[in-house]
């Protein structure tokens, strides 16, 4: 704890915390609305392109045999991955009583919700007949015909929807005391809104009692869930027998990758946010440092996975497998692989230096690289393996189209828009947990760690 005591800021009283967080939620200015408007425009563009795609069929994409999955599924996996770090920070670290999570977990979890919401769009977008997407869900119908529960895509459907539900519940539960807090000072429509959202929370002992238990259990449920979800996503590929997909390490490999990209995305969002909103005294370098360490660790795990994957290909001596990997490194799309290696394995090594870990600008740049690298990783695995399949006569490499690019950009805008809106209208930092944390630490200092725990 010594390090923590040194780094963490113990001065703020409950009142200070409330003041600074409530300050964020003052009615925003023009610059904010311009930003939102910009994002909205991009989102709508993406929506228009999608409408056109539904109307004209998938011919507007660049897809073709054999690369029938490319950008859309890559985006799907990418966003699901992003989502994971949120749950990691809010649930898993909660169970470990990690203290540095308190300041950042609300932001991270919000990111989770919106990332899943974004990811959930892509399986529908990529469908040939999106208007029938509900056939993946079991529902009563006159033919008694239900989805095939053996299909990884059905697993996906269940996993993603469960994940979205559970993290929303968890997120919502955590929000209630804070909303009740801001309810007390809010005025006008906000007052009404917060009053309804807070469900009449007053923080009585009885409410806290059940709240705490439920919060604990939700965290307990979310923890295996987060691991399962990305494993299931990875099985979309591992279950296929396509060389480059058919690999047993995919589940842990993808989960690590997910945490990696997710935490990077958290920093990508937090660093500008704390600067714009003046949260330097709540989100301290100490937090950034810890997050950076997580990135470093997962980066090493991911690099290890790359090595194992290639080793297995070599060790199997299966010519088809070998050829797939040869093409992955040196084929027409080889550059993507090397971009990915650079971004995911080499650049993060800089984080071994504590100075970089705590200085915002370099950290920010590194996280951007990580995001790019992880997007390419998914593309290389998905599209690259498809392009070099079993049938040499049926190889073919894919060319992007405006539609795919536009929808991808639109998705990013949609995500950022939701996040920005939330950050201004809801407590983006959990006051309750900050207070709890500080109280806890004060006691810890006074009475020694063991007694307080």
């Amino acid at each position, binding site marked *: 704890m010594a390090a923590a005591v040194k780094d963490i800021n113990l001065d703020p009283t*409950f009142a200070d915390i409330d003041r600074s967080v409530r300050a964020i939620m003052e009615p925003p200015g023009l610059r904010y609305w311009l930003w939102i408007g910009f994002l909205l425009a991009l989102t709508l563009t993406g929506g228009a392109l999608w409408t056109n795609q539904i109307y004209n069929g998938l011919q507007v994409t660049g897809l073709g045999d054999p690369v029938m999955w490319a950008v859309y599924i890559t985006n799907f996996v990418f966003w699901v991955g992003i989502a994971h770090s949120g749950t990691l920070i809010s649930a898993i670290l909660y169970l470990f009583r990690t203290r540095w999570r308190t300041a950042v977990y609300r932001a991270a979890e919000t990111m989770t919700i919106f990332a899943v919401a974004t990811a959930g769009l892509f399986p529908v977008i990529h469908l040939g007949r999106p208007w029938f997407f509900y056939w993946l869900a079991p529902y009563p119908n006159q033919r008694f015909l239900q989805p095939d529960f*053996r299909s990884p895509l059905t697993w996906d459907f269940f996993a993603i929807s469960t994940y979205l*539900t559970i993290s929303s519940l968890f997120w919502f539960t955590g929000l209630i005391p804070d909303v*009740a807090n801001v309810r*007390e000072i809010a005025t006008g429509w906000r007052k009404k809104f917060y009053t309804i959202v807070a469900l009449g929370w*007053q923080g*009585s002992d009885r409410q806290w*009692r059940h709240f705490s238990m439920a919060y604990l259990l939700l965290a307990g*449920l979310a923890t295996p869930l987060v691991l399962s979800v990305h494993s299931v996503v990875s099985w979309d590929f591992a279950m296929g027998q396509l060389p480059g997909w058919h690999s047993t390490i995919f589940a842990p490999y993808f989960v690590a990758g997910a945490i990696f990209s997710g935490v990077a995305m958290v920093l990508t969002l937090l660093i500008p946010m704390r600067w714009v909103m003046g949260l330097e005294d709540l989100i301290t370098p100490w937090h950034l440092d810890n997050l950076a360490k997580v990135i470093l660790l997962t980066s090493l795990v991911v690099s290890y996975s790359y090595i194992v994957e290639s080793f297995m290909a070599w060790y199997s001596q299966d010519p088809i497998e070998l050829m797939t990997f040869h093409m992955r490194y040196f084929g027409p799309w080889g550059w993507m692989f090397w971009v990915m290696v650079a971004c995911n394995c080499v650049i993060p090594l800089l984080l071994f230096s504590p100075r970089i870990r705590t200085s915002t600008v370099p950290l920010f740049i590194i996280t951007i690289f990580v995001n790019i690298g992880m997007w390419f990783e998914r593309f290389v695995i998905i599209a690259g393996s498809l392009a070099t399949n079993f049938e040499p006569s049926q190889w073919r490499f894919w060319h992007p189209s405006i539609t795919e690019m536009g929808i991808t950009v639109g998705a990013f805008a949609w995500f950022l828009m939701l996040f920005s809106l939330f950050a201004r209208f809801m407590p983006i930092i959990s006051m309750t947990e900050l207070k709890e944390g500080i109280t806890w630490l004060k006691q810890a200092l006074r009475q020694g760690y063991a007694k307080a725990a």
Partner: protein
Amino acid sequence: MSAEVELVGAFADEERLVHCIGQLKAAQTRFRVFSPIPSHHINSAIYTRSSFVRWFVLLGGITGIVTAFMLTIGTSLEWNLVTGGKPIASIAPYCIIGFELMVLFGGISALTSWILLANLPTFEPLSGYRPRFSSDEFGLVVRCAEADAERFESVLRDAGAQEISREAA
């Protein structure tokens, strides 16, 4: 029987509050605590048994698993369509559905159960609540016979309540 009153004491510090709770429990009076933060000190000071929520969650989880296997196996047998030469009711893949539904049902029952057990949603505030109890102060509301009011006021004051107000119940 004389009329009852409520004493509302505001505390800045959690430990004092906890100490005070101990005394009130000893005095076997009825009281309620408002707190801006979840505190297991307060919780354990008041309650001996832990919340029922966990039983609801267990129930939800089990329901989830059962539903999942009934759904998957049932619908497969309804049509017995062979895919990929796998058995009609192939258990292994269905376990994944089982797991997901267990988590889903468990989570939903966690939320509903805690909200209901906590008497939420409600829009009639509990007596003795002050807005700052959601922000930076702990509140201790004691309900006692008018006669005992002074005694408990002193208890609160000694415990370190910053201010104490009295209102008719």
